[in-house]
């Protein structure tokens, strides 16, 4: 396929030599050229032109046209000839074909792009998968090694364990052996001891006989005189009666001891029973009521009915006296049942609390502990406050109650005091109401004044504006005349306004209650306004200054 080589060359370099080379070869093999045409990559425009110029020259137009026609028809495009046979070309069809071919070309390029993209993607995917695969292989090997190591350790530990077991067995065997040795030695010693003891006894007997036989006078007791018995009684002979009496006494002693013990045990039993009954009652009271847990109702129902029965039975006084098995069993069983129920309840509460702590704060039924604690603190505070209040009230009540115990005069005095107080209170009420009315009046007047002020301000502004205009005009035309004329009027007007302002401010300064805030805002503004006015006036004439200073001084006087 030498033709392949020649294709790439004209694409890269638009060498004329190569083109000519190609054209010469083109005549030889149109079929190969056919394939070449189809496989052309995106060439530069020059090469295209050069290529196509190579394909079709002035000599082989007809051939090339016919060839093109064949190709196009095989591809499914309409013929470029005007008629089926003939040499006239259908330009429209040619153009259409060209367009179609271009479209096709674009499509193919796009498809190629897509394929290349996919190719790249697949390539990267492949790389990625290969990396993953390599990593996983590594991991697998690591884990295999680990497993091997652990297995090895396990084997070692097991062998150690076996050794230790063996040692333990050995030790146990040794211990058993030693014990056997000890027991055998002990029996041997006992036997020897018994033998020696028998010998010793024999010697003792002998000695005793010898001693008795000697009848030593020395073995005697020398007493000056007989001593009376400790309890003053006379000595008595030993008879059967005395024996029987002794036995009796001994048994009496034993019996009394047993009786005492039994009494103690009875007392203990009674106490314990009482405690158990109390516990039972308390447990019943602690357990949750039936309503909250509908699921357990059937169980509770049966249990409670049993409990009620038990309560009914065991709360009877006479049952306490009985200490028979059945009563005892009943009591203990009922207590056990209830204890179990209480335990379950407490466990449930615990699990609820733990759930809350782990994050189920949306649960409305369960309050988190912190909230609970806060609430309890609040409640405690409230309780304390209420208690204090109650105490003070109680004290006052007591004081009041105490006073009726006094004489009538004090009562009357108290009544007088009360009346006086009441009258005072009424007067105060009246004053208060009057003041309230005054305040409201003043407030209304102030609002009116504020409105007026606003209006006046507007008017003043207008005047000022007009005045400034005049000034300006006058300045430009007649400087000296207008000044003297206009300024005093302006000042007068301003002073009038100032006086009005003074009044309003003075009025405002008397009630020093709730109206202060808006009022203060207004005088500030007005003062600002005034100062502005004064400054503007001051810039014009010094006479105006004195007036303004007067106003300021008077204002100060007003305030003081």
């Amino acid at each position: 396929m030498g033709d392949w080589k020649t294709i790439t060359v004209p694409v890269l370099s638009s060498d004329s030599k190569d083109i000519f080379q190609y054209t010469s070869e083109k005549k030889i093999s149109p079929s190969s050229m056919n394939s070449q045409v189809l496989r052309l990559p995106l060439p530069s425009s020059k090469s295209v032109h050069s290529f196509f110029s190579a394909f079709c020259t002035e000599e082989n137009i007809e051939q090339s046209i016919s060839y093109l026609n064949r190709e196009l028809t095989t591809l499914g495009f309409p013929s470029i000839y005007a008629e089926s046979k003939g040499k006239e070309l259908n330009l429209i069809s040619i153009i259409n074909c060209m367009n179609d071919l271009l479209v096709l070309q674009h499509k193919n390029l796009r498809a190629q792009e897509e394929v290349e993209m996919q190719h790249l993607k697949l390539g990267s995917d492949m790389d990625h998968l290969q990396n993953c695969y390599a990593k996983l292989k590594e991991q697998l090997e690591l884990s295999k090694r680990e497993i091997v190591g652990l297995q090895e350790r396990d084997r070692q530990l097991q062998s150690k364990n076996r050794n230790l077991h063996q040692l333990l067995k050995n030790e146990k065997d040794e211990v058993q052996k030693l014990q056997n040795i000890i027991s055998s030695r002990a029996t041997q010693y006992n036997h020897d001891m018994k033998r020696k003891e028998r010998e010793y006894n024999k010697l003792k007997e002998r000695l005793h006989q010898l001693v008795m036989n000697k009848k030593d006078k020395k073995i005697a007791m020398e007493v000056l005189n007989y001593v009376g018995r400790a309890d003053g009684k006379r000595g008595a002979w030993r008879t059967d009666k005395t024996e029987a009496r002794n036995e009796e006494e001994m048994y009496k002693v034993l019996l009394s001891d047993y009786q005492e013990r039994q009494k103690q045990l009875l007392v203990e039993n009674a106490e314990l029973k009482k405690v158990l009954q109390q516990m039972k009652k308390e447990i019943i009271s602690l357990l949750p009521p039936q309503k909250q847990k509908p699921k357990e109702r059937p169980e509770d129902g049966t249990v409670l009915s049993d409990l009620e029965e038990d309560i009914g039975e065991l709360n009877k006084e006479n049952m306490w006296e009985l200490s028979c098995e059945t009563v005892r069993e009943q009591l203990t069983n009922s207590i056990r049942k209830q204890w179990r129920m209480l335990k379950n309840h407490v466990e449930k509460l615990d699990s609820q609390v733990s759930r809350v702590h782990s994050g189920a704060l949306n649960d409305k039924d369960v309050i988190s502990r912190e909230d609970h604690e806060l609430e309890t603190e609040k409640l405690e505070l409230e309780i304390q406050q209420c208690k204090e209040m109650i105490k003070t009230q109680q004290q006052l009540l007591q004081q009041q109650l105490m006073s009726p115990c006094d004489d009538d005069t004090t009562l009357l005095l108290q009544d007088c005091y009360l009346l006086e107080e009441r009258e005072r209170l009424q007067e105060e009420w009246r004053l208060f109401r009057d003041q309230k009315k005054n305040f409201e009046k003043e407030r209304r007047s102030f609002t009116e004044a504020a409105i007026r002020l606003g209006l006046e301000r507007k008017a003043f502004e207008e005047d000022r504006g007009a005045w400034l205009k005049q000034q300006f005009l006058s300045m430009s035309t007649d400087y000296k005349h207008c000044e003297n004329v206009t300024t005093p009027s302006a000042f007068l007007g301003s002073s009038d306004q100032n006086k009005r302002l003074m009044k309003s401010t003075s009025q405002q300064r008397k009630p020093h209650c709730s109206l202060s805030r808006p009022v203060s805002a207004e005088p500030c503004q007005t003062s600002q306004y005034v100062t502005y006015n004064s400054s503007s006036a001051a810039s014009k004439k010094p006479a105006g200054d004195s007036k303004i200073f007067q106003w300021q001084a008077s204002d100060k006087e007003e305030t003081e």
Partner: protein
Amino acid sequence: VREASTLQLLQLYTCLDQIQYIEWSSDSLFILCAMYKRGIVQVWSLEQPDWHCKIDEGSAGLVASCWSPDGRHILNTTEFHLRITVWSLCTKSVSYIKYPKACQQGIAFTKDGRYMAVAERRDCKDFISIFVCNDWQLLRHFDTETQDLFGIEWSPNGCVLAVWDTCLEYKILLYSLDGRLLATYRAYEWSLGIKSIAWSPSSQFLAIGSYDEKVRILNHVTWKKIIEFEHPATIANSKTIVYKEVEKSPSVETERLSFSPARALASSLFSTESKYDISQVPVSLQYIKPVADRANPKMGIGMLAFSPDNCFLATKNDNIPNAVWIWDIKKLKLFVVLEQLCAIQSFQWDPRQPRLAVCTGNSKVYLWSPAGCVSVQVPAEGDFPIVSLSWHSSGDSMVLLSKDNFCVCYLEREEI
């Protein structure tokens, strides 16, 4: 004979020989003085100084002598424990008890003095005979299942007799007054067994101290062990108070004792004072492991005593000879440990209140009560090594004995 409160000399009797044993009669009218070497017992009367009595055992020899509870009979144990002769001061008659057992505590009287239990041994078997003290009539005679009976002791209520075996066998048997076996208790086999026992004053508990350094307490209802007290060398429980006796340098006069001091707190120039410090737990005590190949090794619980109000139990572990362990019986826990500088010689509870007096062989007596503990110096000119002590029955004073001297310690009662 001296007056107890004033130590005024009342009588002076001279005996024939060196007295080995002396005992008051129960009605405090007669004094028995036994001279074992000579085999003579002399009895003196306090009311009638002229009255005299002498009992001569002659060739039979004398090993032990004691009063009977009624104060009119004297029981002499002859040599080799051949027999026990009962001499009567009222009738001058003699009775014999044959084959008594040659053990430490072979005779035991009940607290009310009505019955006497005697351990006997015939044909390599142990027997117990119970006599009525009034007329010395044999009430019961039964054999015990012991290998070699070591001791017997009545419970304070007089209804149960505890019989325990030699230290080679850990076995204690409990017999009722009429001779029935109530229970047997055996903690372990083969190792050395019981060393000492003590009944609680209410007869509710029986404390058994053994060679394995443990005290086991049995209850009187089931005769089963209710608790085991261990005596380890290291005390780790933070709730126990450990009082450690510390030597105080004599120059330092500051009294750091915050407890009620006894009267005799005057310091002597020659002896160093000591005080108690509270040691911080954990405390490790001095542990002595005895030589293994000797008989009667100094290990195990050698001394046991219940306080009279039944609240405390004082024990001494011979492996840790410098410490007294005081256990709270109500809580069944270790309450206090007193660590002394020298080995404990003896201790005794005050018969009226929970007050323990301890002596360690130096010239100090140590008192402990739940309020605290104090170390009291005996104001003697020289050394006064206290060997033993004994309380007065009223609990107001106690006698401290050294080898040659004795001293009476009076305790002030708190004025309420």
